[in-house]
C-alpha cells in the first residue's frame, strides 16, 4: 500500500494528523484485536462456528448504533437479522436444534463472540466519527497503526510459531493483503455509503459462504439443512433491504 498511498497520505497529513488517535483505535479493533481473536479461535472451533458467531455482528451493531448513534433500527433490519439468525442456527445445528446444546461451547466460540462485538464497535465508530480522509488513506493509516502493535507481537512470538515457508507465506499474504487491506477498504466504502447497520446485515451471508467454501475445500456434502438454513439467512438479508421503514415511525403512527 505504501507504494501508492504513502505519498498522497503524506500530502494529506494536515487532515490525517488530528485523527491519528481515532485511526489507531480503528486499526487496533479491526486489524489487531478482531484478527487475533479470530486466529486464536480457529485453534479450538470450526470454520462454520466462527462464521456464525461473526454473523452475530449485525445484531450487535443494531444495538450499538441505537445506543451510540441514536439510529432508529428499521423493521427490515430487526426482522431480517432475526430471520437470518434463525437460519444460521438451523444451519449450524445440522437440522437438529438440540445439537448446539449437546455439543457444548468451545473456547473458540467465546473468543469469536468477543470478536463479533469488537467488529460491531468498529463499524459503529467508523460511522460515528466519519473521518474526513479518503478510503484508501483511511485503511492505510489504520494498517500502519495496526502494524505498530502487531510487529512487536510478531517478534515476541516463539520462532517455531512464526516460520516463513511455502505453507505459511500464502496464508500470510491472504491475511496481510486481501483480509487486512482490501477487505477493510471494501467494508469502509460499504459503511460510508450504506451505514453500519445496513452494511452489517451482509454479515449474515458469511456462514453460508464459509460453509460453501468448506464443502468445496473439505468435500462436505450439501444437505437439506444447508439449503434451508442458508435460504433463511439470504431471506433475512433481502428482508433488510426491502423493509426500510424505521420502527420508531411505525410506533408513532400506531399511537396516533
Amino acid at each position, binding site marked *: 500500500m505504501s507504494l501508492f498511498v504513502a505519498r498522497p497520505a503524506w500530502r494529506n497529513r494536515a487532515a490525517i494528523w488530528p485523527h491519528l488517535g481515532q485511526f489507531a483505535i480503528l486499526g487496533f479493533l479491526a486489524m489487531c484485536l478482531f484478527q487475533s481473536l*479470530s*486466529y486464536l*479461535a*480457529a*485453534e*479450538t*472451533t*470450526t*470454520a*462454520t462456528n*466462527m*462464521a456464525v458467531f*461473526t454473523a452475530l455482528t449485525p445484531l450487535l451493531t443494531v444495538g450499538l448504533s441505537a445506543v451510540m448513534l441514536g439510529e432508529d433500527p428499521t423493521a427490515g433490519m430487526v426482522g431480517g437479522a432475526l430471520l437470518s439468525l434463525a437460519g444460521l442456527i438451523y444451519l*449450524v*445445528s*445440522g437440522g437438529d436444534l438440540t*445439537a448446539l446444546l449437546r*455439543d457444548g461451547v*468451545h473456547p*473458540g466460540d467465546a473468543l469469536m463472540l468477543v470478536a463479533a462485538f469488537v467488529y460491531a464497535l468498529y463499524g459503529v465508530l467508523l460511522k460515528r466519527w466519519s473521518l474526513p480522509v479518503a478510503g484508501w488513506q483511511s485503511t492505510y493509516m489504520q494498517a500502519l497503526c495496526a502494524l505498530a502493535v502487531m510487529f512487536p507481537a510478531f517478534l515476541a512470538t516463539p520462532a*517455531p*510459531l512464526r*516460520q516463513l515457508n511455502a*505453507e*505459511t507465506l500464502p*496464508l500470510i499474504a*491472504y*491475511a496481510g493483503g*486481501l*483480509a487486512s487491506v*482490501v*477487505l*477493510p477498504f*471494501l*467494508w469502509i*466504502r*460499504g*459503511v460510508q*455509503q*450504506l451505514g453500519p447497520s445496513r*452494511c452489517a446485515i*451482509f*454479515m449474515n*451471508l*458469511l456462514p453460508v*459462504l*464459509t460453509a*460453501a*467454501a*468448506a464443502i468445496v*475445500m473439505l468435500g462436505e456434502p450439501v444437505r437439506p439443512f444447508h439449503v434451508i438454513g442458508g435460504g433463511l439467512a439470504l431471506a433475512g438479508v433481502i428482508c433488510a*433491504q426491502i423493509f426500510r421503514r424505521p420502527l420508531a415511525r411505525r410506533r408513532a403512527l400506531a399511537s396516533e
Partner: protein
Amino acid sequence: MIKQKAAFLYPFAAIVLWAGNVIASRLSAHTIGRRPSPSIGCCWRSR
C-alpha cells in the same frame, strides 16, 4: 438507483473475502502446528 445498488457490492465482496479469511485461519491453525483438539474434529464430522 444504479449507484445505490452498486454500493451493495462493497459489503458483499468484503464478505466473500471474509469467508476466505475464516478458511485461511483454520488452515493456519493446522499449518502452524497448533492443531485443534480432536473433539472439535469429532463435532465437525458429527454435524
